[in-house]
């Protein structure tokens, strides 16, 4: 969208359960439309800054509306490595609550019309319209994803200029966020799952020594360990969510191990189940019939009930544990709050750990 063009006439559902239209914001002197999405790590890192813009200008006649442009089914599993939630409207409602997104957050993942009309390419990306709702600024929010290194607050400068009746000095900048997932990417996202589902599946018998070794976490990485059994309803019920979690984070600094507490003679049944679940994680089965001995070999403090799920630090510290039914979101948030940052997205670990601390 070229500078000077008219704002898109959107009518989209928000996380507040209401539909929001362009005309709803007619009284605002300035309208800022930010494209952001749940899974997008760049959106997450800019979230605090978007919140600050919203808060500091809302009483000055500036309306800020966020639109999630991503097609939920087009976000591939390996693009979910920095998020607890997907990009559907229900996911967005949960995310808005957990991440304290207090500004209007609208879903446009079905038709993606707003993003197309705006000509947006990444999240976050901001479009600022004047009182006549003509575009006066488009592009990045500021010049560095790492807030401590920001020199030029481009969006804020544009808003300040418009409020002062001045021309916007720099009207167009390039947004370098997370690329938008267009609906055309659905086939690719499906193909990635299909490929994972062709990966070899195996289960090894774990001796007492091996269990003790797993507990000490020799992987050098963060480690999720899930104890389960085929006869355990909650275990088999939560297993697909666990495998999805594994698939989301496996390209980061995380190893994922399942340990079946079935009897070693039940290996065939355990394998049947793992195959059905396409569980290409690292899978083990107790090598001895005595569950008490085997549990104690893993850890003398091991709780007796299954399922049990742990997140261990590289030094073996327990960072998260759940005895009984897993709350998948809590596990994902614990993983996100602990995994060290990648080069691409510095500040992710801090973002998630501060959310956890609030």
């Amino acid at each position, binding site marked *: 969208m070229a500078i000077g063009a008219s704002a898109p006439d959107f009518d989209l559902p928000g996380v507040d359960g209401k539909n929001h239209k362009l005309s709803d914001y007619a009284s605002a002197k300035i309208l800022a439309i930010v494209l952001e999405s749940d899974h997008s790590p760049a959106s997450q890192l800019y979230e605090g800054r978007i919140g600050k813009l919203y808060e500091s200008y809302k009483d000055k006649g500036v309306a800020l509306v966020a639109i999630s442009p991503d097609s939920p089914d087009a976000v591939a599993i390996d693009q979910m490595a920095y998020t607890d939630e997907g990009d559907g409207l229900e996911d967005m409602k949960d995310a808005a609550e957990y991440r304290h997104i207090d500004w209007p957050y609208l879903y446009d993942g079905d038709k993606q019309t707003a993003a197309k009309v705006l000509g947006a390419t990444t999240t976050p990306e901001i479009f600022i319209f004047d009182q006549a709702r003509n575009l006066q600024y488009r592009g990045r929010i500021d010049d560095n994803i790492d807030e401590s290194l920001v020199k030029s607050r481009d969006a804020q400068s544009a808003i300040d200029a418009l409020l002062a009746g001045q021309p916007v000095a720099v009207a167009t900048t390039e947004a370098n966020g997370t690329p938008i997932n267009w609906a055309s990417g659905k086939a690719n996202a499906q193909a990635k799952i299909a490929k994972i589902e062709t990966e070899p599946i195996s289960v090894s018998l774990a001796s007492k020594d091996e269990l003790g070794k797993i507990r000490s976490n020799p992987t050098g990485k963060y480690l999720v360990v899930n104890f389960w059994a*085929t*006869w*355990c*309803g*909650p275990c*088999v*019920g939560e297993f697909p969510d666990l495998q999805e979690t594994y698939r989301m984070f496996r390209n980061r600094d995380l190893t994922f191990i399942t340990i079946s507490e*079935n*009897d070693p*003679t*039940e290996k065939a*049944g355990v394998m049947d*189940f793992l195959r059905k679940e396409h569980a290409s994680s690292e899978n083990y089965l107790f090598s001895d*019939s*005595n*569950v*008490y*001995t085997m*549990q*104690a070999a893993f*850890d*003398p*403090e*091991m*709780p*007796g*009930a*299954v*399922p049990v799920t*742990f997140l261990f*630090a*590289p*030094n*073996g*510290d*327990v*960072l*998260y*544990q*759940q*005895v*009984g*039914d897993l*709350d998948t979101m*809590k*596990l994902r*948030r*614990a993983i*996100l*709050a*602990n995994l*060290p*940052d990648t080069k691409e997205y510095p500040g992710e*670990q*801090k973002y*998630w*750990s*501060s959310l*956890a*601390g609030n």
Partner: protein
Amino acid sequence: MNSFGRKRYLRSAKWPLALVCAAAMVAFAYASSAQDAGQPASQPAAANPSSAAGGQATGRGRGRGRGIQPDLEHPVLPIGSPAPDFSLEGIDGKIHTLGEYSNAKVLAVVFESNHCPVSIAYEERIRAIYQDYKDKGVQLIAINPNNAGAVRLNELGYTDSTDSMPEMKIRAALRHIDWPYLYDGETQTTAAKFGAVATPHIFIFDQDRKLRYEGRIDDSTDITKVKTQDARNAIDALLAGQPVPVASTPAFGCSTKWLSKATGVKEEMEAIMKEPVNLSAASADDLKKIRANASDKTVVVEFWSLKCKDCLDEFHDYENTYRMYRRRKFDMITVSTDSPGEQSKVLDFLHEQYASGTNLQFDSADTKALQAAVGEKWKSSEPFVMVIGPNGNVVFQKAGKVNILEVRRHVLASIPNDGPWFGVQEYWTSVIKAEGNRN
């Protein structure tokens, strides 16, 4: 210093002070050991203080750092604690209290449940403790801690029914559970006071009603491999006025189904309601194959029709049966005998029932052919049910309205045990045998 962890723990007002202090120390322990291990400078933080590991630095056998923690929401009663008071209804319809058993030299409280396969595996051992010690001044009582509303259908793979009081009464009659069996599923306050981790989990109190043992009943789920009778050893020691050799062991079984976690039941049903519903036409030859059952599964075949009110009434019970056992070597097939022209109405009904299993509709009006396919017992009227084991072995068949629990028991007695220690198949076989003798 892990500032996130520290700040969070100090803010958490509901935690006792001792835990808050311990938590701050834990955070420190982590930071220093992370440096030792050459970890990046970023500080790990647990995601949620209420369910995360943080709290006490135990880590027995591990030196330092954050170890595995007990359930902080429902902590296990510490050894030496006085017996928690309770007032609970039993299967005898009476209210039972702690004070009622004040004459007993030793009181053993065992948490057990209907649905849990581990609890089922231990039922005979609980009976034996009750029998062997009841004349020696030892009172054993059982408490079901589970709220039936928090037990999902997919947790019912080894049982005919779930954990409600009416179902406890049925089970007690079937299995001659003649020790007091109390229901705490309503409020779960007693289970919370004990910190019942799982079923089974046993707590043994001395004459002063101080806790002297808690944990497992013995050291092997497989009764043939038991070496240490932990619960009996504790009782024997108390009767002899000796200290209990091992006071605390891990309890193993099905986690207590806390009502606070009951959302899983709703989620399960929502997922079931999204499953596809299909209906296919079936010929007499198709039914002959089903009757011969070349698979390794036990199959329930349910004949029904839209005209049969009993069929419509009990259809839901069959669907739940399918949902309970479908992860095991089990299948269920519904066969509508409505005329082929009624197909859309049949499908409508199946949709209403979220019948996501195999649904067939007989493709002709030739009831003789159908009778020839499935057998003489079928008198061309519905409802009619067959439970067919591998190799076409009909283990149960019945025309007319059925007791769904009876169908389920025959299924449970027909599916082989998953593992060597369960004995679920034998358990249900013995129930059927006892019922057969009674009839």
